[in-house]
């Protein structure tokens, strides 16, 4: 085997697909089921809008283009890929100013960001509250159904010769590969795509990477007709993502789905892997969603789910070969942007492993970039 990918979530699936498509012999090991980790707790965001200029935005711009290609290649309906665009809403003058400033800086990096007035917001989203100051429209933002996307990419990888082993845990690393619950597997490269558990895998390999969980909840409404045309979120979302606060941060994100349900996020808390439903979080998300879309007050909540975003202290993922352990490659730590960034991640990993020059400089995502104290 050339490449053994640890993790059959969105990022692992993308790595498997792009490596297989590049002619490498690929195996995937997953301790649970396909996409049973954070991928099944996500919303399916593929965004450029929520990223400050920098390495992550560059990654996102590449990834959005690759997602569009994947949609063309396999059929967007296969995984409910929708090029619906994003609308960011500012409800105070300060938020509007901050948003306009961010949009200008993003445009300078190649993002298609259009400033919109409150009147334009009303025609973009007729069901939105009229109590808004202004906003921005990002036509490049997309949405996908993450389970279907991961499953489909793995299926494509299998049709290119990859093997997928679910229910198989990695319990150690060897000179030439890994030791699993189903025996040893050898490979030239091992890709750590274990998401929120990427830190555990990295530690097993003797190359620690400081990935920690950041819990998020999503509310799901009863099915509705098309009530929102774009992904809609509040302008304080970006500040939220970049925050280091351990307490509860919420910033409303609302979008429709192909199935008709509306998904409502987003909350961020550092509570380890606590899986208990937190009613205060659900209440806050419900209140913020109703403030943005008043009709939601009369709509029933169907269910809620949670997931643990994998984050690194500097809010950038780890992508690329690990200089500390030959043959070890990382592709994890995407913190809430894993779905969107998976296509670029998989593509860049495949380029790296086939000796091609990666389309992006991977230095900002180096696995060994953390100061010793941080890793601990």
């Amino acid at each position, binding site marked *: 085997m050339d490449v053994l990918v640890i993790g059959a979530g969105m990022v692992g699936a993308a790595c498997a697909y792009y490596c297989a498509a590049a002619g490498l012999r690929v195996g995937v090991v997953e301790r649970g089921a396909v996409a049973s980790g954070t991928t099944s707790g996500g919303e399916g965001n593929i965004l450029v809008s929520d990223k400050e200029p920098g390495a992550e935005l560059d990654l996102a711009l590449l990834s959005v283009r690759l997602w569009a290609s994947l949609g063309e290649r396999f059929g967007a309906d296969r995984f409910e890929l929708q090029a619906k665009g994003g609308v960011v809403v500012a409800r105070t003058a300060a938020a509007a100013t901050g948003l306009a400033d961010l949009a200008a800086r993003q445009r300078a990096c190649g993002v298609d960001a259009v400033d919109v007035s409150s009147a334009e917001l009303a025609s973009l*989203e*007729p069901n939105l509250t009229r109590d808004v100051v202004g906003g921005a429209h990002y036509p490049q933002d997309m949405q996908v159904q993450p389970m279907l996307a991961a499953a489909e990419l793995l299926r494509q990888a299998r049709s290119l010769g990859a093997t997928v082993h679910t229910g198989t845990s990695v319990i150690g690393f060897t000179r030439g590969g890994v030791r699993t619950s189903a025996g040893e597997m050898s490979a030239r490269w091992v890709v750590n795509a274990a998401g929120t558990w990427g830190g555990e895998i990295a530690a097993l390999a003797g190359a620690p990477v400081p990935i920690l969980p950041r819990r998020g909840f999503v509310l799901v409404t*009863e099915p509705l*007709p098309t*009530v*929102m*045309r774009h992904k809609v979120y509040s302008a304080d979302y970006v500040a939220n993502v970049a925050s280091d606060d351990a307490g509860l941060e919420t910033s409303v994100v609302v979008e429709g789905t192909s199935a008709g349900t509306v998904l409502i996020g987003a909350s961020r808390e550092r509570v380890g892997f606590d899986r208990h439903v937190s009613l205060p979080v659900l209440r806050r998300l419900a209140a913020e969603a109703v403030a943005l879309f008043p009709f939601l007050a*009369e*709509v029933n909540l169907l269910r809620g789910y949670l997931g643990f975003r994998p984050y690194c202290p500097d809010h950038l993922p780890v992508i690329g070969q690990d200089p500390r352990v030959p043959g070890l490659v990382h592709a994890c730590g995407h913190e809430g942007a894993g779905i969107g960034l998976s296509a670029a991640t998989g593509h860049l990993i495949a380029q790296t492993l086939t000796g091609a020059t990666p389309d992006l400089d991977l230095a900002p995502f180096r696995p060994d970039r953390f100061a010793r104290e941080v890793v601990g």
Partner: protein
Amino acid sequence: MSFSFAGKEIVFGAGQSVGAALIAAGYRSWRTTRHDGAPRGVFCGIGVCFDCLVVVNGRPNQRACLTEARDGDEIEPQEGTGHAHLAC
């Protein structure tokens, strides 16, 4: 006592649910599903299956089997999600 349903007067007894009254009046379905447009009425009769959804005084997604019929109610069949007026 009676309620209106799709323009007709449906007589009911005290304590009967909307679903029971509609069945007694000869109806077996009062909504269509959102994908196939298939007719549905009461299935489980005890509020578990959510098949018997009907619009009660303007509110959609009410389980007919659990909703006690009241004199003067306006009951309407439900199409799909029941929220068509929100579509944009």
